[in-house]
């Protein structure tokens, strides 16, 4: 038999708002719908209700009863994200989840109850002998973790599960086959019949669900039509429509509308931090990490500012995401006060690594992703990554890729003896020079002296060592050549219209230093210095 669970959040509008503003949890808060004279209370906290605030009262009435009432408008973004959070919690219990509207979720838990155990050390709660009760308690804990005060009911039909969830003593499990018995004493209003149908049933003299269930189905259907037949099924604990599972969402959203426009970055980041924290927790529940974060700022008086941040590696670290967001906003401010925001996290599976007991310790993928994201935000794109060689003959060619190291070997090895190669320091970009040449054997050219070309607009350089002077960010090189070795010819792209043909020399200057010089066309450059 199919077993369905219902997650129900009472006063969902209020619960969604308090989830975004947890500081208001112990305050007298009323959620208001409508503007001006039409503003009326739709939900209120317990503290406000104790003072007489009730749903349906106008805001003026509520203020007369409780002048210090904190009024908050309904926030569609908060409610949407709270509903998504509830659905995501449900998806951790079952893959078949139906979104039934504000604060109500149905899920198929048939056979799932065996996977859940009682929380160890839960004081004051007797251990559950029923496996379904254990599942329901685990669901309550999971909802609590995403700051939603949900109630849980389990039964064989959606109506019975919903009614069980609405009971104040949660969780409630209706034993299999006893749905009709469970529903029988309840008033007909629990079935939520339409107004005309409710009046007709009242005229029939029916007071409870059990009274309706006792009547023959054909008689009800002949008098009330399709609506009556569905009501009769529901009264007998049979769902007129099966569970409608929802597809998995491709992204995670969080956001809120602000009470007043924000013009400074710090207050915005303070609120964004809480939203990102909620987003991170939701992704953690599903086992995802964020690979791209998009955020849309609602501007005052109108307009939107949409941005996106690509993370170097999937991460759930709130601090990293907040740092990247700060850097992006500092670089290009939105240009208008912000009255709302929404974050969209595109999920991806976080990287995992199997650590070795005896080999070299591996870098944690999670920490690595965070570090690289921070480094990229500080240094800029293309300045952090894994170096790669590129096919070709030109020595300055290189590429930089996303750093994702392979796992270390299982056993630690002994390093091989170094080849002892002489390293060169590459100049990026190559430094243009003037060259004096002299004749050599054959057609070859030998270099007699070199001198870097100094831009006339730059100030006159001041020597700070024997043969080097600092020119802005470049190095000025010059002097008589003592030993010249070359040329070595390199040709690349001979098949194209403009092939790259170069001749390379190694030159040692009289004053010291060995440089790699090349001629490309009519121009001369120094592109590297041998380690000196």
């Amino acid at each position, binding site marked *: 038999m199919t077993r369905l669970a219902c997650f129900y959040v009472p006063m969902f509008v209020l619960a969604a708002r308090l989830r975004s503003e947890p500081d208001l949890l112990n305050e007298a808060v009323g959620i208001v719908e409508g503007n001006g004279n039409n503003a009326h209370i739709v939900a209120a906290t317990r503290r406000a209700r104790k003072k007489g605030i009730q749903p349906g009262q106008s805001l003026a009435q509520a203020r007369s009863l409780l002048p210090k009432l904190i009024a908050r408008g309904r926030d569609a973004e908060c409610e949407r994200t709270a509903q998504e959070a509830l659905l995501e919690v449900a998806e951790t219990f079952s893959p078949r989840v139906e979104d039934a509207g504000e604060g109500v979720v149905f899920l198929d838990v048939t056979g799932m109850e065996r996977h859940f155990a009682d929380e160890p050390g839960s004081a004051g709660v007797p251990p559950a002998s029923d496996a379904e009760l254990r599942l329901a308690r685990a669901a309550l804990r999971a909802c609590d973790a995403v700051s939603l005060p949900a109630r849980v009911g389990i039964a064989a039909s959606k109506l019975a599960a919903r009614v069980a969830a609405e009971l104040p003593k949660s969780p409630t499990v209706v034993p299999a086959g006893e749905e009709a018995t469970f529903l029988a004493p309840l008033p007909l209003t629990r079935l939520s019949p339409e107004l005309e149908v409710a009046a007709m049933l009242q005229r029939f003299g029916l007071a409870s669900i059990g009274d309706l269930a006792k009547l023959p189905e054909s008689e009800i259907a002949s008098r009330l039509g399709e609506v009556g037949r569905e009501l009769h099924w529901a009264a007998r604990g049979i769902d007129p429509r099966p569970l409608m599972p929802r597809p998995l969402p491709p992204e995670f959203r969080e956001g809120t509308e602000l009470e007043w426009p924000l013009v400074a970055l710090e207050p915005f980041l303070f609120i964004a931090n809480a939203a990102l924290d909620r987003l991170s927790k939701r992704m953690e529940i599903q086992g995802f990490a964020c690979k791209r974060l998009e955020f849309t700022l609602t501007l005052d008086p109108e307009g939107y500012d949409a941005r996106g941040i690509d993370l170097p590696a999937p991460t759930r670290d709130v601090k990293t995401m907040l740092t990247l967001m700060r850097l992006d906003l500092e670089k290009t401010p939105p240009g208008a006060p912000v009255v709302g925001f929404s974050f969209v996290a595109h999920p991806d599976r976080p990287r995992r690594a199997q650590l070795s007991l*005896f080999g*070299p310790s*591996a*870098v944690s993928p999670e*920490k*690595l992703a*965070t*570090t*690289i994201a*921070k*480094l990229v935000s*500080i*240094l800029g794109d293309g*300045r*952090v*990554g*894994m*170096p*790669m*060689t590129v096919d070709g003959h030109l*020595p*300055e*060619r*290189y*590429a*930089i890729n996303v750093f994702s*190291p*392979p796992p*270390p070997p299982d056993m*630690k*090895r*002994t*390093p*091989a*003896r*170094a*080849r*002892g*190669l*002489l*390293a*060169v*320091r*590459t*100049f*990026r970009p190559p430094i243009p020079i003037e060259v004096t040449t002299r004749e050599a054997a054959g057609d070859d050219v030998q270099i007699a002296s070199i001198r870097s070309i100094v831009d006339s607009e730059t100030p006159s350089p001041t020597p700070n060592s024997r043969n*080097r002077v*600092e020119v802005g*960010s470049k190095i000025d090189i010059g002097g008589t050549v*003592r*030993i*010249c*070795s070359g040329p070595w010819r390199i040709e690349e792209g001979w098949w194209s219209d403009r092939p790259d043909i170069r001749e390379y020399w190694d030159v040692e200057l*009289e*004053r*010291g230093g*060995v440089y790699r010089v090349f001629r490309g066309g009519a121009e001369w450059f120094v592109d590297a210095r*041998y*380690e*000196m």
Partner: protein
Amino acid sequence: MAVLARRLDTQFQLLEAPAILKPATPPQIVESGEGEAVRNLRATLEASIASKLTSGSELVRAVARHRREEILPTTIPPLDALLGGGLARGKMTEIAGRGTRFSIVIATLAAATSIGEAAALIDASDSFDPQLAEAAGVDLRRLLWVRPQTMKETVTAAEMTGATGFQLVIIDIGSRRPPGRRVPDAAWVRLARVAESHGATILISAPYALTGTTSEAMILAHSPRPRWLGRGNAPRVLAGVETKLKLEKHRRLRPGQTTTVFFQCEEAVGSAQSDVIAIPTADTRQPTAAAKAS
């Protein structure tokens, strides 16, 4: 005194004749680590599986041995001998001067990555050549290349990578300091603490001494001398560069020792040593004043 004498008398029996020394019983044979059960188990297993089986006592001994061997060899024998085996893990080592610092950096990267360790190169002068590094034996897949533009970014990147778990972090500063303000000495103290707390090996390569007293060892690289192939009118080919290294400071070893290392060009690999010539030069390059002061 009398009371004290009586006490000694009762405790140690000073007044009795000295006992004849007897040969001590031979000490019990210390377990070799391979217990009976492990030996029997290994005998029944296939050789390839038995070789991977480790007992608890063997594991404890291996961990102790690993702690003793907490050095990362640079795989340049003269330099390793100068440093007492290599770079100390969990410590900061500095190489200063105008010598062949970058070649030492590349060799150290090759040593670390070849055994599967993750390394980070903080290349402040943006002069790293991946092609040459690959030829020198660096496993580029295990190397994080960071190219900061200021000194502050350089130290920050080193601290972050060290705290992330990279086993080797190298800061290389070219022939001149990157732009930006000088970093305070406290930054180097913090970096040394990162190395110690995360067990990272940190190598600083700079034209002048930067780390002060915070580093474990400091090597001074003297100005190098190029060596050429080819005699007489024959065309010349750069054979390599020779440089003198001096141990300026070490927390465990006596400073002042010197050694000479030779790095050869890839084109000259395989050439006979007798072909390498040193062309005399009037330039007697000495270490910079800053390096001397360190």
